[in-house]
């Protein structure tokens, strides 16, 4: 195994005795050069975790190790990190150049070296021409870039981003997303990125830590957490999902990546194929199917289908989503749109899916007492 750039071991933060911990024995390994997103709803402990890594907050317990060196109690100003704040936190009384040079001055870099590196950092964020501007003359997107340049110019051991995009408007956010990612990849800065926006996390991160209630629910690549959620919370928080309780009847073969194909029975709807971790036979698990992975057909097709009635149609031009009522369940599905006739509420619909798109959550559902 390669040495991790950052290891977080049993990190815990309790704001006051008696309160539930904001971060509860969190463990995480971050590889050199990776961008890791801490993703979760507000209050899940993601910002607290980031602030502890930065040194702005003392952990109640646990340790933080960077490059094999324990830094849990190292003062903030000795950690050599770079951070971009949600409010950007540019120094209002300094111009752009002075802002970016601040970290270098603290490191007593020579004047000529400072000049060269500040210019380099400003070029990197394409704002070299604004070096003499006052901070308050800059737009939100520009301030954001300056904050990024200021954090990166010191070649930080870790780059910490605290919801850096949430104060930008939607269009700019997309541009900055791509830009931050490409700068991060060019500089190979190991990065922790706090966000509550799943799209940002999926788009930008090498690894996503989905957090909830001070715990990491799942730590994995974007495709992992999206395609193979470990818990209902993860499936629900990242993208949309249909959940069906499925009794696992038997194994039908082995699938890719060590997974297993299963026959499952869904109450009142019949038997279907699904995929999941090995060894699930005999218990009941939640089956996760993404709406756009459900095929909707208006004529009966094939055997393994769920027959239902379209309850609601939402047409947004480039997408068509339908709610299909089957028995007492309502399933969300997406259909391609065409210029032909659109389905209408009340039409019959038949749902089917590819076996590998129906994923059984690894933890069994508690059987209701029979």
């Amino acid at each position, binding site marked *: 195994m390669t040495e991790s750039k950052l290891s977080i071991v049993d990190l815990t933060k309790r704001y006051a005795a008696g309160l539930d911990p904001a971060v509860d024995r969190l463990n995480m390994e971050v590889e050199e050069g990776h961008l890791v997103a801490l993703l979760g709803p507000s209050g899940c402990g993601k910002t607290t975790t980031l602030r502890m890594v930065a040194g702005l907050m003392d952990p109640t317990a646990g340790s933080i190790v960077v490059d094999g060196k324990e830094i849990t109690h190292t003062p903030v*100003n000795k*950690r050599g990190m*770079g*951070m971009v704040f949600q409010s950007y*936190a540019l*120094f209002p*009384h300094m111009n752009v150049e002075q802002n970016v040079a601040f970290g270098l001055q603290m490191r007593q870099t020579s004047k000529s070296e400072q000049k060269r590196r500040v210019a380099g950092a400003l070029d990197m964020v394409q704002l070299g021409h604004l070096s003499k501007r006052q901070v308050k003359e800059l737009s939100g997107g520009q301030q954001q870039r300056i904050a990024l340049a200021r954090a990166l110019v*010191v070649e930080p051991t870790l780059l910490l981003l605290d919801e850096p995009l949430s104060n930008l408007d939607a269009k700019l956010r997309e541009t900055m997303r791509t830009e931050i990612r490409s700068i991060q990849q060019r500089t190979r800065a190991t990065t922790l990125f706090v966000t509550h926006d799943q799209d940002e996390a999926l788009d930008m991160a090498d690894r996503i830590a989905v957090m909830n209630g001070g715990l990491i629910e799942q730590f994995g690549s974007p495709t992992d957490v999206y395609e193979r959620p470990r818990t209902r919370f993860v499936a629900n928080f990242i993208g949309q999902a249909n959940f069906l309780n499925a009794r696992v009847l038997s194994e039908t073969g082995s699938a890719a990546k060590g997974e297993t194909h299963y026959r499952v029975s869904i109450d009142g709807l019949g038997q279907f194929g699904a995929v999941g971790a090995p060894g699930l036979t005999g218990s009941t698990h939640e089956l996760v199917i993404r709406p756009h992975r459900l095929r909707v057909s208006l004529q009966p097709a094939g055997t393994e289908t769920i027959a239902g009635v379209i309850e609601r149609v939402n047409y947004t031009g480039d997408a068509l989503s339908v709610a299909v009522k089957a028995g007492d369940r309502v399933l969300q599905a997406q259909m391609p749109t065409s210029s032909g006739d659109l389905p209408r509420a009340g039409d019959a619909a038949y749902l089917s899916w590819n076996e590998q798109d129906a994923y059984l959550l690894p933890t069994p559902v508690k059987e209701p007492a029979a």
Partner: protein
Amino acid sequence: MSEARLFKPRFNPAKPAFGILVFLLYLFLLAPLLIVFVVSFASNQYLSFPPEGLTFKWYEMLPEESTFVNGMRVSLIVAVIVTAIVLALGVPVALALDRFEFKAKAAVQSFFLSPLLIPSIVLALGMVLLFGPLNLNNTYTGIIIGHVAITIPFVIRTTLMSLATTDTSCEAAARILGAGSWTVFRRITLPIIQPGVIAGGVIAFIVSFDEAVISLFVAESGLPTLPVQVLRYVENSADAAVAALSVILILISLAVVVVVERVMGLRKALR
């Protein structure tokens, strides 16, 4: 083409009425100053209005009036030292009140702001009684302690106002970039709150320079400040020299305010 006329506001009688009201208020506030100004050039033998002729003799008198010159010196020394002390104490107190949570916070806050609420005559009386046994009456130390007490609330208030509007993540950003606490204070916090600190300093200077009650009680006989000298002068003689002195003082205050406004933007600081 007639559209523009549609949007022309109709005559609003409230507007000139408001203008007149503002004018009268200013007149009310400034009338005493105007009269002092006029009287200082009047050749009347005694302080009176209206003037009988034009003269500069009162101004010519000022440098020869040793009580005024001495008083001016005492007042300036006191005001400068008081301003320095009050800034050195008030800014850290304001920082502590803004940044830290501690048990007696409300009590500390009230303690430092209380001199604003207590009549100065009460404070002055207390000080005379306290300073007597300490041999501080009629000393610079005594006057300065008294003035520090009454001016520190201003510095704390204006600094707190500046602190309330600053983004603390600036300080966090500086620390992460490698700055120690003192560097953060000197390079980040202080420049950001500078307008409030300067406004507090200016107010403290003017209040101290102007202060009569405490100075009168604590140091009338031994170390009279300029306001005390003015009071004494008016008691004994009734010529217009004090008017001339007043005009000089107004001009000094005005100069301080204008310079600070030009250099630092006092208006921004007081807002």
